[in-house]
Each structure stands twice: as C-alpha cells, then as structure tokens.
C-alpha cells in the first residue's frame, strides 16, 4: 500500500504522514479461505495433541469434580477444609477465581465492540466460550458450599412451604442474581453471535444427522440483509447490556467482602480493584489457551502477532492497576489509623501467609512489567510464561484476600492456620480439567473464530472499496503499521 499510495502523485505537495490501517487478517486471504480454515477444524480429524489433552482432562474432571463432589455430598461439606472461623476457604477462592476468568470474554465481546476495536473479531468467540465455561466451573462452588446441595433452590425467590423469603439486602443474594444473569446473558450473546457461522457449517455438511443438528441450531439463517439489519441491532444491544453487567458482576462479588465488617475486607476500593483484577486474569487465560490453539490449528493469519501484542498491553495496563490497588490498600490501612485494619494488613505481609502475599505481588505486579519491552511482547514463550504466572498470581490474590483474613478476625483465641483438605484440592484440579474438557469440545464442534465478523473486517467487504481505489491520492503518506513492520513488508 505504501508504494501504491505514493506512486503517480504530485511530488510538490507536502505529504501528511498517516499510520496505515492495520491488516487484521494477513496475506490477503479470501472469504473462502477463512471459511475453509475455520470449518476445516471442525470437519477434519483432530490432531493427536487434541486427544492427548482431551483424555487426561476428562479423567481429571471425572475424578476431581465427579468423584470429589460425590464424596462431599455423600459425607458432608465438612470434607472441605472450611472450619468455623474459616467459613470461606478454597471453595470461595476458586469461585472468585473462575468468575474473574470469565470477565475477559465479555470485555472482548462487549466493551471492545462498543469501542469499535475490530481486532476483537478474531478472538471474541473463543473468549466468550471461555467465559461460559469459567462461569460453569465457578457455579459449582457456591452451589455445594451451601451444605445441602439438594436445597440449593432455596437461593431462588420461589414461594415455599416455610413461607420464608430470601434477604434481598444481602450481598450473597445479590450475587445469586448477578452470576445467574451474567451466565444467561453471556450464553445468549455467545449463541446468537454464532448463528451465522452455524449456518456456514450447515451449508457445508452432507445431508444427514450432522446437517440436521447444525441446521436446527442455525435456526434457518439465510444471511439476508433484512435479517442482518435486526441482527446487528441485537448485537449492539447485547453489547450495551453486557458492558454494565460485566462491571456489576465482579463489583457485586466484591460486595460479599466489602459490605462485611471484617478488617481487611471492609474497603471501598474493592469493586474497581476486583473488576480490574478480573479483566487482568481473564486476558491472561485467553492468551494461555489461544496461543497453543493458534499453533495447533494454524490460525496465525487470523490471530496475528498484533492481537497478542494488544492483549499483552492490556495485561500490562490492568496488572499495573491491580498493583496500584494493592499499594493503595496498604496505604489506606496505614492512613486510616484503624489498628484492626493495620493489623490485618500487617498479618498479610509479615504473618504466616507472607509467602502467598509475595507470590501474588510478584506474579501480578512485577511479572507483567516485562511487557513494557516490545521484544518481550513478540516472544511467545515469554508471553505464555507471564500469562501462566498471572493465572497463578490471580488465584493467590483471592487466596490472600480470603485466607489471610477469615482465620484471623477479631478474637485472637480463634486464630489458626488454614489448610485445604484433599477434597478441596481434588475439586479445584477437577474444575481445571472440566474447563479444558469443555474448551476442547468447543474447538472440536463449534467455529472457534467468528467467521462472519472476520470476513467483515477484510478490505473488500467495504462496499465503497472500489471507490477508494479510484482516488488513490488523498494527500497522505502511509507509515507502515505494526504487522508490516514486523514482517518486513511481507504481510502485504
């Protein structure tokens, strides 16, 4: 483009340097290539690595979630390491961890849509799937944490024989509403976004059961503009609804802590701090699963280095916000003059859980700072390494918040050292297996990249594409954008 824009123009005119528009899809790919590549993942045989990941994941999920919860239900919730003071141990740590993971999916699909960040199209489908699966994993913990899981319907405001109603002033009930709404809206968003792509698969299938099933889920989509017009309005509305929703969900999760009178929890910084942390942890998880998937299925032209660069920058930004929140918490504990608040934070830093605190600090605040260097953002091993550290660090953040606080509240006589039980560990590892199982099934059966939206970002999809070519000289000089620079002009 740089050459064609400068060729045949008036050389006397001063040129305005303009950064060339980023190519979101590399190597001038056609519509058909995009369809073939993405549908090929579903239609072809899965590579060996898929089975090598899938089989252990299923086994871990079956033993951890299936076996662990069976043992828990048949014995009692006491098999988890929770005790009278540490009512919330690993189960709630894991709940907050998984819910947080989900937030990046909604952020990519909704907030980046509203801000017209077109690079989201290559990653939004997988990120939304990740949201749904993470919320599924998260849902397990509060459901079984209530003690008698068969009574879990008491969470819903349904008239019952005892004539008891829920306490609508309680953040725990707000949480029930927030998480279930979040799951429902995310599912609608994910599914409706997929309808045109399911139609693509339907149209490529040979007649048979597969075609029938994809056909039913494609709802009879035809791609007419009278459908697209409503469809795009729906997408905009769902994005506009999801944006405040995603901010509300982790805010309400943080209210579980912040509205209590427990030192270390009773702070107003919690809602923004939790939301930033959730986005931070979620983006790390998106990269953790997308970088390998990109290699395994050869999606380098669609999930480009620019996408990874953007996400690494978001991790750097949100990681720094989280770091600011950690420091500000300490400062407020000191500045408030409250000796209980001060003692709670002193116990975090120099108490028996100091190892967890410094692990969190290193993984969440120090590690992402490496992304200031461009070369580090371009090295996928470094990106993967930092993302793994962030995944660990964000888990430890929730551990620090819950476990350093509850077993050491107001009465020193109650203090003790919290240890998770074997069933705690089993359930957590099981949910990791469950998450991977669901994600691998998603890669196997559903289009993992938004086919229609990726096609929409191509240059030739603009109906006025031809008109631009009629007037090549717009008085500007094109500066090379990131991809072109990275690939030495090869990417054209």
């Amino acid at each position: 483009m740089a050459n064609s824009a400068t060729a045949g123009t008036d050389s006397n005119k001063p040129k305005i340097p303009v950064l060339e528009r980023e190519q979101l899809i590399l190597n001038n790919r056609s519509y058909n290539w995009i369809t073939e590549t993405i549908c090929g993942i579903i239609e072809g045989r899965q590579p060996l690595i898929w089975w090598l990941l899938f089989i252990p994941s299923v086994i871990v999920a079956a033993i951890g979630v299936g076996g662990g919860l069976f043992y828990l239900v048949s014995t009692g919730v006491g098999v988890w390491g929770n005790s009278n003071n540490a009512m919330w141990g690993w189960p709630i740590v894991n709940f907050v961890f998984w819910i947080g993971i989900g937030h990046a999916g909604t952020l990519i699909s909704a907030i980046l849509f509203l801000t017209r960040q077109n690079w989201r199209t290559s990653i939004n489908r997988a990120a939304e799937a990740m949201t749904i699966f993470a919320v599924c994993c998260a849902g397990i913990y509060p459901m079984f944490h209530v003690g008698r899981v068969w009574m879990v319907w008491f969470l819903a405001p349904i008239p019952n024989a005892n004539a008891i109603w829920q306490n609508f002033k309680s953040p725990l009930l707000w949480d029930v509403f927030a998480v279930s709404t979040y799951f429902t809206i995310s599912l609608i968003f994910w599914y409706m976004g997929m309808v045109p792509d399911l139609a693509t698969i339907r149209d490529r299938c040979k007649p048979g059961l597969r075609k029938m099933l994809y056909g039913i889920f494609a709802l009879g989509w035809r791609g007419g503009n009278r459908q697209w017009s409503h469809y795009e309005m729906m997408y905009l509305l769902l994005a506009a609804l999801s944006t405040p929703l995603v901010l509300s969900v982790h805010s309400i999760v943080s209210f579980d802590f912040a509205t209590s009178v427990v030192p270390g929890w009773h702070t107003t910084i919690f809602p923004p701090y939790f939301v930033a942390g959730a986005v931070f942890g979620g983006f790390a998880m998106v990269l953790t699963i997308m970088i390998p998937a990109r290699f395994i299925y050869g999606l380098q032209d669609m999930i480009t280095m620019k996408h990874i660069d953007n996400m690494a920058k978001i991790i750097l930004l949100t990681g720094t916000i989280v770091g600011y929140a950690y420091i500000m918490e300490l400062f407020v504990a000191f500045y408030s003059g409250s000796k209980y608040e001060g003692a709670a934070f002193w116990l975090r830093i120099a108490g028996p859980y100091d190892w967890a605190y410094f692990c969190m600090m290193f993984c969440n605040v120090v590690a992402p700072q490496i992304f200031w260097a461009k070369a580090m953002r371009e090295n996928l091993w470094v990106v993967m390494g930092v993302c793994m550290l962030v995944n660990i660090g964000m888990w430890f953040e929730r551990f620090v918040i819950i476990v350093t606080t509850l077993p050491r509240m107001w009465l020193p006589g109650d203090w003790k050292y919290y240890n998770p039980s074997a069933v705690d560990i089993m359930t957590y590892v099981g949910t990791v297996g469950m998450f991977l199982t669901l994600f691998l099934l998603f890669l196997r059966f559903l289009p993992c990249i938004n086919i229609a939206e990726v096609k929409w970002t191509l240059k030739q999809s603009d109906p006025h594409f031809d008109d631009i070519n009629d007037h090549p000289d717009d008085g500007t000089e094109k500066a090379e954008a990131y991809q072109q620079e990275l690939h030495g002009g090869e990417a054209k």
Partner: protein
Amino acid sequence: MSTSAKRVYGYLAEYESASALYKAAEKVRDAGFKKWDCYSPFPIHGLDNAMGMKRSILPYLVFCGGTLGLITGFTLAYTTQVVIYPTVVQAKPANIFTTAAFFPILFELTILLSGFTTLFGVLGLMGLPRLNHPLFASKQFKRVTDDAFFIAVEARDPNFNADATRELLEEAGGTNIELVEEED
C-alpha cells in the same frame, strides 16, 4: 406425498462482490421493489440505506422489556421484604427506604429481561427459527454463508415481471440468474 405443483418463489442473481451488491441494491430499490432481499456472508455497511430499509425497531422492544424487568425486580423485592416477610437485619429499615439495598437486584433483573427481550425480539423480527425456506432449494445459494453475494426478488412483489425483473437483475451486474421455485 409430494405434489408436483410448483410455485415461482422469485429470481436469484449472484453478484461478484460486496460493492457490486451494494450498487445493484440501489438499482432494485429505485425500481420500486418491496419484497426482495440482499444476501451476503457478513453484514454490509450501509446496505440498509441502499435497500431503502428503516432502522430496526428492536431497541424500543428492549426498552419495554428492560422497564418490565425493573418493575419486576422492585415488586419482587419490595413485596417479599416489606409486605410479606420483613427481615430486620443489618440495621436496615423494612419500609420504602430499604429500596436502596435492592438496587443490585433491580439492575440485574433489568438486564436479564432486556436480554430476553433482545433474544426473542430479534428472532421474531427476523422470522426465525424456521426449518426450511424456498431459497434453500437453490444449489448455488449454499455459498451465501461462504463467499457469494445474492439478490433475490420475490414473485409476490406487485412489480415482479418474469422478463423485466430478470433484465433488471442482469443489467445491475447479476450472473447465474436462477428462477427459484417452491412446492405449493
């Protein structure tokens, strides 16, 4: 079971690119057709205007749905907490001033019902789900979800004329023009 009686659904014409489709759509619009549609693998910016379509009414439906959600949330929380089963905890009153503590519930239910309205509203407006459509009988139409662009003009449009409509689509740059029939 199938009868051999066929009814003409309309003409289907292929266009080579998004911009060709856009220009053809303007011509069909200017010819005064009402029952026709442009088919593409992705939404095309500005095609609504080129087809002379109005903005989707979905936002109005969603506004009503959201309002209903807000009212539902308030009614649910107020009735249960103040009227039926007042719980005096957390030093919060059990009267109209408790409403502030219901805001998260009101918000979530507003979003939930807006979301449901969006889902069912859009399906209603798009006329989906449906199991079949006359256009699915066309072999080339399968490519509409891959890389092809089509215009279909329906026979039930009052302006439809077997020869003139075909000519119009051809003049606008259409290729592979096909008469699509449906079983009566």
